[in-house]
């Protein structure tokens, strides 16, 4: 028998070391030290209810254990085999005690559907995939369903595009299927371009067969025999694993001619992108695959009518495809039972930023931001204060504390001024400056703008110039109004979806962090201490002993002697010339008397 006691920082702070000692002492007193092993483990992740004690092998999970509870646990549980009910986790909703950690809310918050095989199978071995039910959905549609039934099933499931815009997948397939043509294409958009996003890469690296299978299913549904994956060349491992998966599927007769004896032919080719953000937009992606410049064109015509090589094409994102096979095997009703009213299923997020459990997570739609950040993400790093969460990348926005209880689905996020996006989620604490964050995303957009339409090419540039002005302390209140005007014009007039959404980071921070903008403009102050030009280094003349260490270390020769000698000191104090100071911080780290501070 093992007694696992959490030795994470949180639990140690609440006396887990004493708990371990009590266990050892009491067990030794009863002569059980050889049968029962007491182990100090790492964090169980459920710090809120610490200290945690887990008894193995029966997987009992005790929460908020106090050192004096140990004797009871030993006497009741370890010796008599009875669980100590009042120490078990109590479900906050139904007030029942839960013994087994598998049934606790914290561990139930995540549900892996798109990532079902990631971290479970060997992605380079098709046998392991098949043993988990891989390719059975393809077999099912080919032998038991008509193409129309497949489209209906996907429509009924309520699956929506996971690339961010959330267009109903079944409807998209249906539109494409109507345009019968001798040559049609299924295209997988694997051009994951949002900074910090890696959902699609992880799926392709962890479960490439699900994409291969789903593309074949889509091909059958819309009447296409060619599949193309547009993947960025900077994903070499994902490319390799897809290639292996495609080769294995061909070898097994799951791709190629006459798949599973049904007479249906389908094969997949990879196309490599050079990693331009705009190529994630479907028309730009198609042009890039055709060998043209990766620039968007006006819709209509939609790709469903005239796509790759002017043939009807259906473009879906990687994560969207990853959901398809399981919808076919488990049924549309099963999928539609998960999630919220208008957004079904789950969403994968790349959780990053100032959060304890940085990671790849998958949650049912409708989960709140609070659950993600505090329960799954484990809260803000270093116990700092939550400030904002950015979703949707350069097309999304920053949400604040008042949005924490927003359920995650397409409509709620849009209503709050952000968007679902492809799944990047960056959590920020009070050390982040929201003006600088807006500027960062705008810099990205300016860099990645293809330049075809002027609202995006010139408008974003002008906005960036204004933001730079503000972060350098030269902004005026008129500039803030001008930002809003420009944003409105870009939103209305840019050519493609990426351009139309590019002002979102600025607009959402203007809405939610207006005070901070005003502070930058009026008080010339950056409360997070991020905007360098707004910082001022000062020497406290009463504290300075005049040793001159800072002066020696200053690379800009901005420090000089004054005439003032503070009472009790022998040498005149130093002062910093703000016009010469480059704000490198070298003086602060040199000063042994904490006489220098940032204002």
């Amino acid at each position, binding site marked *: 028998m*093992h007694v*696992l006691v959490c030795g994470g920082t949180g639990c140690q702070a609440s006396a887990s070391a004493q708990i371990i000692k009590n266990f050892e002492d009491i067990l030794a007193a009863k002569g059980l030290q050889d049968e029962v*092993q007491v*182990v*100090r*483990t*790492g*964090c169980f*992740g*459920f710090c809120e209810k610490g200290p945690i004690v887990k008894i193995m*092998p029966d*997987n009992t999970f005790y929460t908020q254990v106090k050192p004096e509870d140990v004797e009871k646990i030993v006497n009741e549980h370890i010796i008599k085999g009875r669980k100590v009910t009042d120490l078990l986790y109590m479900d906050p909703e139904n007030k029942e005690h839960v013994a087994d950690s*598998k049934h606790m809310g*914290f*561990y*139930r*918050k*995540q*549900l*892996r559907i798109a*990532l*079902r*095989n*990631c*971290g*479970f*199978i*060997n*992605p*380079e071995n098709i*046998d392991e995939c*098949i*043993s988990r039910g891989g*390719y*059975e959905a393809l*077999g099912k549609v*080919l*032998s038991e369903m008509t193409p129309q039934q497949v489209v209906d099933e996907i429509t009924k499931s309520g699956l929506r595009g996971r690339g961010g815009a959330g267009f109903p997948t079944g409807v998209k397939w249906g539109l494409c299927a109507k345009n019968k043509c001798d040559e049609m294409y299924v295209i997988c958009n694997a051009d994951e371009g949002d900074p910090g996003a*890696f959902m699609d890469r*992880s*799926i392709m*690296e962890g*479960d490439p067969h699900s994409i291969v299978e789903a593309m074949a299913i889509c091909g059958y549904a819309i009447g296409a025999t060619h599949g193309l994956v547009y993947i960025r060349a900077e994903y070499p*491992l*994902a490319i390799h694993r897809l290639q292996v998966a495609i080769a294995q599927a061909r*070898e*097994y*007769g799951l791709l*190629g001619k006459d798949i*599973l*004896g049904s007479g249906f032919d389908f094969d997949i080719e990879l196309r490599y992108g050079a990693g331009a953000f705009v190529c994630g937009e479907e028309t730009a992606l198609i042009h890039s695959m055709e060998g043209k410049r990766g620039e968007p064109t006006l819709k209509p015509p939609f790709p469903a009518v005239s796509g790759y090589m002017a043939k009807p094409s259906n473009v879906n994102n990687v994560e969207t495809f990853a959901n398809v096979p399981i919808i076919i095997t*488990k049924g549309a009703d099963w999928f539609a039972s998960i999630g919220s009213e208008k957004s079904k299923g789950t969403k994968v997020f790349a959780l990053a930023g100032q959060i*304890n*459990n*940085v*990671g*790849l*997570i*998958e949650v049912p739609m409708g989960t709140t931001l609070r659950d993600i950040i505090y329960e*799954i993400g484990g809260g803000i790093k270093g116990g700092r204060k939550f400030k904002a969460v950015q979703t949707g990348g350069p097309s999304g926005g920053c949400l604040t504390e008042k949005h924490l209880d927003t359920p995650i689905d397409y409509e709620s996020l849009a209503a709050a001024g952000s968007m679902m996006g492809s799944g990047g989620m960056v959590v920020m604490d009070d050390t982040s400056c929201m003006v600088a964050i807006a500027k960062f995303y705008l810099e990205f957009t300016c860099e990645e703008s293809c330049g075809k339409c002027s609202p995006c090419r010139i408008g974003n540039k002008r906005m960036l110039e204004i933001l730079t002005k503000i972060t350098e302390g030269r902004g005026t209140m008129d500039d803030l109004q001008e930002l809003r005007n420009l944003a409105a014009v870009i939103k209305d007039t840019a050519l493609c979806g990426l351009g139309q959404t590019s002002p979102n980071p600025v607009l959402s921070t203007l809405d939610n962090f207006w005070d901070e903008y005003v502070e930058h403009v009026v008080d010339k102050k950056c409360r997070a201490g991020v905007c360098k030009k707004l910082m001022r280094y000062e020497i406290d003349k009463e504290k300075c002993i005049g040793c001159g260490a800072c002066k020696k270390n200053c690379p800009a020769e901005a420090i000089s002697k004054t005439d003032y000698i503070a009472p009790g000191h022998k040498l005149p104090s130093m002062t910093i010339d703000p016009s010469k100071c480059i704000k490198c911080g070298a003086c602060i780290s040199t000063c042994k008397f904490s006489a220098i501070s940032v204002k």
Partner: protein
Amino acid sequence: MAKVKSLAELKAMREKLQSNLDLREKSNDPDSLVQIKVAMATCGIAAGAKQVMEHMMEKADELKIGVVFTQTGCMGYCHAEPTIEVKCPGKDPIVFGHVDNNRADEILTKYVMNNEMVDGVIPVNYETI
């Protein structure tokens, strides 16, 4: 010639393959087969998962413990890469984070060989369908 010709064949194949995996999992010889999965997506490899896996293979040979190593995709614990999942026969799998060569040795010599729990266990925080 295609290997799988119909859905029925695919299902038969699944059953056969499943029993293969079962055989691996419920081996009669509990001392001989430990399964270790190493999360090897780009992020894991960048964090050194590949070297750790190679090191563990050598170490397992040296210690004469029969281990089946499998590379797998992202487990989602990016804050603790490289991560490995160790499944000893008859026990629930356990995920360890921040595994470098030294920690790998510790896991093999302490947990796998002597059933002593070591630090750095990550709770599995999701359900898979």
